[in-house]
């Protein structure tokens, strides 16, 4: 058991995982600002947003793997009764193997290129005390089979470059599962994969959830993936969460202009073809040029002078307390953006 500060306030109904006011800076520039969310046990939350909006930094800050140029400015991260944000690096490292695991976008790059994949799984088993060295090989084969690798005996003897992207991602997932983590963080786990392989990996994640009640924080920019697997969604834009909702509710009704516009620009399977698609004017701002006030204001059709000056906080709506939006005009979004 890992020592961690006691949290008397955590009751039985508290969410399994909670992030509060997390902020990350890159070379003094704010890259993630005041990000808060909570995930219940067994739930899948999608953190969705465009490239550069701070999704990966959020995940890396949670597990204590921020790159050197980045620094966590403040914020608390709690998993069950462990305050991850207060743990010393060694304790956090121990947690990473046991309570929380992370898988990344580039499966091949996250594996050791010089080690057979079966050995990599076996090694992790031994390190985590899940198996003795003599047992580890057989257990590893079982894990490879469990994540759907065909011919695990043959594959276990191969190196990462001999495996397809989908198979490498399965190996990564097998490694992440060794410790049977309570929380699995998957950063764009299918972005590098083809759709038929993506469907296999999403299916695998769904099965894990059903069999082990694994809680999943899934990072993606793909609204299709969100629709497929998430229970709940946080939408990020330029370092902040701008909207939070249960997945079906979010697609039915949007309380933030960015979410509303983004969903409308994506072609659908039943929309009219060959029409001009709705667009969002302007460009995604970069770190150095994040606007004051609401960061979406320069692109927002609803923006007024207040938006340009004051940043709207992410708050529950009076009219719909299940929903949160960071927009001064949240209630007008559906009627004003058609």
């Amino acid at each position, binding site marked *: 058991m890992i020592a961690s500060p006691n949290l008397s306030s955590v009751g039985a109904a508290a969410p399994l995982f909670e992030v509060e006011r997390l902020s990350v800076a890159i070379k003094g520039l704010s890259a993630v600002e005041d990000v808060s969310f909570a995930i219940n046990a067994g739930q899948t939350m999608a953190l969705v947003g*465009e*490239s*550069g909006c701070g999704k990966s930094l959020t995940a890396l800050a949670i597990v204590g793997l921020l790159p050197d140029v980045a620094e966590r400015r403040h914020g608390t991260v709690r998993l069950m009764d462990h305050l991850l944000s207060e743990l010393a690096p060694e304790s956090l490292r121990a947690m990473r193997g046991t309570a929380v695991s992370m898988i990344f976008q580039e499966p091949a790059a996250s594996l050791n290129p010089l080690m057979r994949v079966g050995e990599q799984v076996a090694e992790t088993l031994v390190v985590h005390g899940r198996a003795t060295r003599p047992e580890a090989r057989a257990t590893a084969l079982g894990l490879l089979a469990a994540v759907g690798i*065909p011919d695990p005996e043959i594959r276990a003897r191969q190196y990462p470059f001999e495996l*397809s*992207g*989908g*198979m490498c991602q399965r190996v990564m997932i097998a490694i992440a599962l060794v410790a049977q983590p309570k929380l699995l963080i998957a950063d764009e786990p299918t972005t590098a994969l*083809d*759709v*038929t*392989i*993506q*469907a*296999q990996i*999403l*299916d695998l994640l769904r099965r894990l959830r059903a069999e082990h009640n694994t809680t999943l924080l899934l990072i993606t*920019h*793909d*609204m*299709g*993936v*969100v*629709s*497929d697997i*998430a229970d709940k969604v946080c939408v990020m834009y330029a370092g902040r969460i701008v909207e939070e909702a249960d*997945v*079906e509710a979010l*697609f039915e009704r949007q309380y933030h202009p*960015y979410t509303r*516009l*983004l*969903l409308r*620009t*994506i*072609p*659908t*399977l039943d*929309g009219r*073809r*060959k*029409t*001009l*698609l*709705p*667009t*969002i004017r302007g*460009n*995604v701002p970069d770190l150095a040029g994040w606007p004051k006030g609401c960061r979406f204001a320069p*692109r927002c059709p609803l923006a007024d002078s207040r938006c340009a000056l004051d940043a709207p906080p992410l708050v529950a709506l009076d009219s719909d307390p299940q929903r949160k939006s960071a927009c001064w005009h949240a209630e007008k979004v559906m009627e004003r953006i058609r």
Partner: protein
Amino acid sequence: MTTPAGRPARRDALLLSVRGLKVYFPVRNGSLGSASNSLRAVDDLNFDIAAGETLALVGESGCGKSTTGNAILGLVDRTAGRILLDGREIGGRSREARRPLCRDVQIIFQDPFSALDPRRPVGESVGEALFLQDGLRGAALSRRVGSLLEQVGLPASGAARYPDEFSGGQRQRLVIARALALEPLLIVCDEPTSALDVSIRSQILNLLSDLQERLGLAYLFISHDLLTVRHVADRIAVMYLGHIVEEGPLEQVFEASRHPYTQALLSAIPLPDPKQQRQRRAPPLPGDPPSSIAPPAGCPFVTRCPDAEPQCRRTPPPLTRRADGRKLACFVR
């Protein structure tokens, strides 16, 4: 629409024909121990594109989409096959055969960041072909570059600025302006929006469709984003392991695909709508595509196909036209 003399003005007239195109790449060590020592990136491809239309080329990574586009542009050597533009062979060794390549066929790549020379003002990149091919100089060149920039929704004054002053979406506009300079008939668009922010993509897609409308351009639109393809394309060709397995009008293929691979591909697209998606989700197609170095003897899809019969393992099914007008390469369907 202005069409210089001698160019096919009529939309729907046959513009490009690809016949028996093969592109094999040599493989250094036959590590798979097979007799074959080449990688069959594109294996006997046949298709046509009409003036003014968009043909989408879809399929999974490595199936040969980009190689096909590159072969049309003469950017890779073909192993076999003919490519005819407006009835004339293009991309042969002679100067005459290569000429149309510089002018009538252009390409836009996925990555707008590496596509422009960072040390030159963008106007020079956009106008380079006009300078080299058409000998335009001075004020005439600047005027033409300015109007190209305006055509893609950028201010003419942008010509003096450098690539790093432009965002990803703007750079893709510059790349499109450069492709338009010589008034091509066909543009190969190789994943033109996949490197762009999601919120910028629809701007670029709209620009491409607007240009097509105004200039009568034909597109070979290469993409793995099937929802985008459904929106922009007139026809679709589905590739698997270097072969076209199904080809037809967009609606026909999307609404009633017949090849088992097309069906698996379409049902694997996650729809951006949770209710719809959770209803239609099908068990995923198992397995990975086989290696193009040691492809199966029969049908390229046989190793993953739920319907495979003994003959599928023996001979490759030819791509044949069916009663409903589409082309299909399958013995069973």
